């Protein structure tokens, strides 16, 4: 009757992840899940964006992220050594096994909400990949060096839209500010360090998330100031994605992303 899975940690936001994965696999999976889940969200815009060029742009950004997710999840599976490939990890894991940040799973909202998330996440991902290019792990460094060039374009795209909407009409300004307000509660989680990142950062493998904050603040503040927008001060902060704790929106996203693969195992065309 009740099928509550055992909680992987307490809900206080400080417990270590209860993961059986080797640390590098866990880390690669976190970054891969961020890319995969945001790609799925961006894909929802296809045929619904405000203009054709934007439809194409969001689909292209999603495609870049799918590519990054494929290499990161493939690597996570290789390091784990249990024979799981990118498809097994993307389609056959349950919600509590996904390690993505909550910001990427939040519903798209209107175009401004999506653009607010693109600004926040792309600025974070750019700093992350730039630092990860120097990782002691050669595979992670290679994936990051490839991806950093792509994310440069993603951030530029988001920046242009935030400026255009924020410093646009009264309505577009209002909608853009509202978009920021919806996304900002999930910003702090991007910079949370935990035992895994502490340990891997000491070895020069991972990037300490907290160290990315100053540059992110400078980048984002400059855009918001030019766009005449106000930086939100959220009343709560969502946390727990790295430990498999997700918002209500996540289950629906996974249902759509995974059902075809699960309904037709092994199908190909």
């Amino acid at each position, binding site marked *: 009757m009740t099928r509550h899975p055992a909680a992987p940690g307490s809900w206080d936001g400080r417990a270590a992840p209860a993961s059986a994965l080797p640390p590098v696999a866990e880390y690669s999976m976190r970054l891969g899940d961020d890319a995969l889940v945001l790609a799925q969200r961006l894909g929802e815009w296809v045929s619904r964006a405000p203009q054709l060029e934007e439809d194409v742009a969001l689909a*292209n950004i999603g495609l870049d992220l799918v590519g990054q997710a494929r290499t990161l999840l493939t690597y996570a599976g290789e390091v784990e050594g249990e024979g799981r490939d990118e498809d097994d990890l993307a389609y056959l894991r349950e919600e509590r096994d996904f390690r993505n940040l909550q910001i990427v799973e939040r519903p798209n909202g209107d175009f401004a909400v999506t653009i607010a998330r693109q600004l926040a996440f792309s600025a974070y991902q750019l700093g992350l990949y730039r630092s990860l290019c120097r990782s002691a792990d050669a595979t992670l460094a*290679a994936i990051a060096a490839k991806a950093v060039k792509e994310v440069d374009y993603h951030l530029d795209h988001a920046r242009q839209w935030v400026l255009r909407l924020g410093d646009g009409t009264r309505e577009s300004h209002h909608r853009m500010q509202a978009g920021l307000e919806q996304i900002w509660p999930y910003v702090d989680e991007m910079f949370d360090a935990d035992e895994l990142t502490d340990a891997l950062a000491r070895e020069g493998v991972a990037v300490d998330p907290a160290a990315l904050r100053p540059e992110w603040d400078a980048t984002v503040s400059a855009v918001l100031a030019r766009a005449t927008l106000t930086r939100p001060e959220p009343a709560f902060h969502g946390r727990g994605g790295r430990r498999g704790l997700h918002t209500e929106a996540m289950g629906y996203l996974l249902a759509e992303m995974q059902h075809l693969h699960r309904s037709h195992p092994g199908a190909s065309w």
Partner: protein
Amino acid sequence: MVTGVAEIREVVADVLDPEVPVLTIDDLGVLRDVRVEPDGHVVVEITPTYSGCPAMDAIRDDVLARLRDHGHADAEVRLVLAPAWTTDWMSEEGRRKLAAYGIAPPHVRGTGPVPLSLSVRCPRCGSPDTRETSRFGSTACKSLWTCRSCLEPFDHFKAL
């Protein structure tokens, strides 16, 4: 059956990019290495233009088919990520073919940072009076532009 590395390289070098079918993988700089191991096993290394480039699977199949046709069924295609692909690896011949095909070729980035606002010449009339319509185009590697002189919309292969 060809056996030398140089001959085998020639066999696979003119596989076309399915997304821009005037460019070979050699023109693009996607073909990174061809090796023949002592037992005759052929290893071809290719690198993706973009992480999510869907053309890689097609290119891999085409390379293997070419090799099979030339007597090398024992072959594999490996995807290498480092060093990351750059449009600077595109050959002069490739740039010329792109422009003739109607796609403005990427400018050379060199080593320093290059401003994105460099003018892109219209591949149809040659005018530098063009504007970017969208940073993202019909494939991951292209952006959309419009020529103010002849009014034609065109694709630009983004410098990466």
